[in-house]
């Protein structure tokens, strides 16, 4: 289907961009790489009157070393991230996760800001307008039923981006700005856990930067992603593990999962299982169990929820053991 006509606005200055957002607030969408927004607009999931193209905003591009760690502009491509020597050295987990997104061609366009802000996904939602008509629409768009959890009133569309679990493990913060102010929040706080209203972002706000604290540099880690094909596919379940060691012991272990809930989630309670008197294998299994219990997949994708949850278990265990072996 064709995209509904819109006006494309391409400011060169961040301040202009923010003023534009404020002016058309509620009737404007931010276009970064467009790899998710444009297909969605063709499906008539968004029909904004204005589209704000942010590709000319220098201030929100590039990877910069700072006192506190690393600052990544929201409009930095995943291609740049996977090829950044600094990130490869200090935050290999992020690089590993970024590399699994979509395919090389898409990563040339896709940005990290877009990845963090990525819309949640569901087989009943990411469909054409005529398809959605035939299912009577859904809570997330134009309807009153959630087809995957029909008794309830909540939207269960799955948050399905790859870099946020890595960013969560690395304790990333994001900078959000509007025309008059700027705020900085931990990524964890950015997501609501609702499938429809999935992020805490006001209509006049833009995500401008992502910060990785110095304290998270040099964490070891592993990212395990379930996809049917070795390329192209979104994650159907995935887990990121970040580990800091001290004298062979685990000093800090963080685990986050994606694609199995309406938000990417840090698995709570992991640290309490670490360094107890048990084998690595046993510990990994217990942590995996915790991760699996955190996952609440529903039938938002072709694979069954039970399978996706099981994979969270298997992959968590594997990722923990792999991180531990490094």
């Amino acid at each position, binding site marked *: *289907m*064709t995209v509904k*006509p819109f006006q494309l606005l391409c400011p060169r200055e961040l301040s202009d961009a923010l003023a534009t957002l404020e002016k058309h607030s509620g009737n404007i969408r931010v276009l970064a790489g467009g790899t998710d927004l444009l297909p969605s607009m063709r499906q008539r999931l968004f029909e904004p009157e204005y589209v704000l193209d942010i590709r000319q905003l220098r201030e929100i591009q590039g990877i910069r070393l700072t006192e506190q760690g690393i600052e990544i502009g929201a409009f930095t491509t995943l291609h740049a991230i996977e090829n950044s020597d600094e990130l490869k050295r200090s935050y290999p987990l992020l690089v590993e996760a970024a590399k699994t997104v979509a*395919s090389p061609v898409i990563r040339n366009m896709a940005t990290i800001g877009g990845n963090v802000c990525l819309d949640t996904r569901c*087989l*009943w939602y990411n*469909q*054409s307008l*005529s*398809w959605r*008509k*035939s*299912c*009577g629409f859904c809570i997330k768009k134009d*309807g*009153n*039923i959630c*087809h*995957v*959890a*029909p*008794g309830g009133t909540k939207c269960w569309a799955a948050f399905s981006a790859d870099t946020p679990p890595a960013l969560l493990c690395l304790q990333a913060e994001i900078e959000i700005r509007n025309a008059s102010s700027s705020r900085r929040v931990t990524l964890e706080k950015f997501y609501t856990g609702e499938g429809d209203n999935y992020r805490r972002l006001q209509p006049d706000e833009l995500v401008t930067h992502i910060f990785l604290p110095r304290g998270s540099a040099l964490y070891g880690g592993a990212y395990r992603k*379930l996809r*049917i*094909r*070795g*390329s*192209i*596919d*979104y994650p159907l379940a995935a887990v990121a593990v970040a580990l800091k060691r001290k004298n062979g012991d685990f000093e800090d272990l963080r685990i986050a999962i994606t694609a199995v809930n309406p938000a990417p989630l840090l698995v709570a309670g992991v640290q309490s299982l670490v360094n107890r008197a048990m084998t690595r294998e046993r510990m990994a299994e217990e942590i995996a169990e915790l991760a699996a219990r955190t996952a609440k997949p*529903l*039938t938002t*994708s*072709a*694979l*069954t*929820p*039970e*399978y996706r949850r*099981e*994979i969270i278990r*298997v992959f968590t265990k594997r990722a923990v053991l792999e991180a531990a072996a490094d």
Partner: protein
Amino acid sequence: MSDFSVVGKPIPMIDAAAKTTGAGKYTDDLSLPGLLIGKILHSPHPHARIRHIDISRALELDGVVAVVTGADAPNPYGILPVGHDEHALALDKVRYVGDNLACVAAEDSRAAERALELIDVDYDILPAYFDPEESMKAERDLIHENKPHNLEKDYHHVFGNPAQGFAQADCTVEGRFIANEVTHAAMEPHSTLATFDLDPVTGNIGRLTVWSSTQVPYYLQHKLSLVLDLPMSQIRVIKPLVGGGFGGKSEVIPLEIIAAIAARKARRPVKITYTREEVCWAHRGRPRTIIDLKTGATSDGRLTAVEARVIQDGGAYCSYGVVTILYSGALLGALYDIANLQYDGYRVLTNKPACGAMRGHGTVNVRFAFESQLDEIAAKLNLDPAEIRRQNLLRPPAITVNGLRVQSYGLPECIEKVVERSGWAERKGRLGKGRGLGLACSHYVSGAANSIIRSDMPHSTVNIKIDRDGGVVVYTGASEIGQGSDTMTSQIAAEVLGCLLSRVKVVAADTDLTPIDIGSYSSRVTFMAGNATLRAAQEVKRQIASAAAQKMGCAPEELIFRDDLVFRRDAQRGVPRLEGEPSGENPSRQRSRGRTHEQANTSQASVAGRVEGQILRGSLQQKRKEDLTPKDFMTFEEAVVAAIDFHGALTGTGSYAPPAAARGGKYKGAGVGPSPAYSYSAQVAEVSVDEETGQVTVHKVWAAHDCGRALNPVAVEGQVIGSVWMGMGQALTEEMIWKDGLLMNPGLLEYRSPSAAESPQVEAIIVESVDPEGPFGAKECSEGALAATIPAISNAIYDAVGIRLHEAPFSPERVLAALRAKKAAKPLNLTEGVDPTRPTRFREHGGALCFKQKGPERHELDASRAR
């Protein structure tokens, strides 16, 4: 003679440059002055009676030129004469979500799409049927009134004495297999551009011209004539480049008719190109199939009887369905020697998009079941899977119990080759944890011996015309769809005429210009159009020979055509050296090997006097005046000029109809299955299975294929690799997912054809059985290999981890479910209650379409409401 100069050589596709540079034109690339864009309104209901369609609001919209509905073309059609149950735009009823209701022709797509929103349709919603076994119980609200129990067609065949066969068996294995639904996923979505000539004086509508992405231009011409009430002579169908078909373009697809109706009403050219979702709704793919299979064998592995009950979920229209269900039974024969055979086939209607022909038509799902069960028997009898297959080989020439004639039969060699190359004897069962090898075989027709339109007309006819400068034009109705038919045609013409391949130009698939050919399906083109080309070329060659023989003072039989020369057999050694040629005793021998076209072209130009065209002709004429003594040889052009001077025009024609002996038995349904020749395949797959995730990786496939003579080995290898790859898709990842008649994955992101990342190494091994009737001995090579891949992978999974999957695809959740069941691990509902090792029914996607009063409008008896 095995020493050919063009045939048997690896030759790049003659249209490859246009495709790889983007210069080639597909239908959607075409435009005409005044072109309108057509967009189709699709049904949101799986089954409903149309009370009323109101297009008035749509017509008022700016930019809208015409809106057409079923009433604009009420004549029914369908690809099979027995299945005229379709209307390109619904007349009284819609039968699946996606069925076609109306089409808007507008100045641009946006106006057309907006107009669709303004069409008001009033429905009476009917209960819908989605599961074929449920559908067969229907007493009311039938999908087509004239098909009781929603049964499109059933066949019950008994050959030999199955009861006696089973009585003789030492081992009998029985089981239900399920193959889920797959679709072609050709790269090019369907596209059609239609335009009518307007009489310049009266303004009346005149002839129709249609450009369409079709495998079957002549059937399209025929069906357009039926629906539009126009004589076929008033319709011209042209097939531009086609980006793959795999069967999805082997019949008339609604948009092809709709574009024509819309163009007629709008009195302007109309183009419609499907979205990927519309391609999935047009579908015509491989039906999901239930196969209840029973096989008996003696203790040494000889098969004593086979009994198959097959149910196909055909969707809402007949399409090729009657043929599909017959192929499923018929091609139980002709691979192995089976004396007793029982087949019960049911083609069932459901409220889903129509299934049709897809690569390996009708044979693939049954072959998956059969080859899996054969391995189960081998395991029970403690026989090697290769051995049990060797035990049951045919001894051709043979006629099978169900009346199929088998002549060339390279299966034994195929099995030997893959067993040898894969290291089967040493490696099978010894690859360590989670890794295994599996073997399976398959076969396919080289064209159907009986065409779907019952008539005595030849299945292929080819005309050849040669110009004075030696340019050879071949006119063929055969449809190049990427498989290489134009290249094949050129090769055969060049080989017969002994001229350079670069002289041959192919004009194909334009019903005004090219003689009839029934199309590119059932792997018939090389065999049939190839034979027709061969005969046409031979006819022209005879004319050239008679003229050349006069010039050379010998009998025509003494002439040899080769390497762009015509020479006397006895003068072979004396042929003078040509400019630009290295010296050597025998130019014809030398030139036949490994010379590029460019080299050939240069020397050709220097023989005849520089370049092509007029200058060339002039120089030839001069030469003729100077030189009147009989010669030992003539260049191809000189011979052609002589022939034209002698005969006037230089044209020839050839046609092919399958011989009576190949047309099969007399019983009801005997027409489907017979072929003039069968291709054979054997494959070994090497896989590994991740036992914690159920993920299967195919590492390598050794695929031996008997294609008769390989006219173009690279093309054969390409087809075999493509078949394996497509079969691997059906084996592991491709599956149309259904929920109450909604296709949950109508796009290439969620319908997962393998990507380059999953492609295993495929070692294509060509086996050349040289068929007595094929052109230069060639048979098919594009479909037969696919069916072996699925069971080869399934059998390899068994070898790797000991689970026997009865449901395809072997998705990770199914594999894991089977693994956990085997280990008696804590049960997890990984497959929504359908055990992939003993499936009973098709699985529906989870969640709910309707809940209480919420969700789309559906009839209260509809399955979606019942739950």
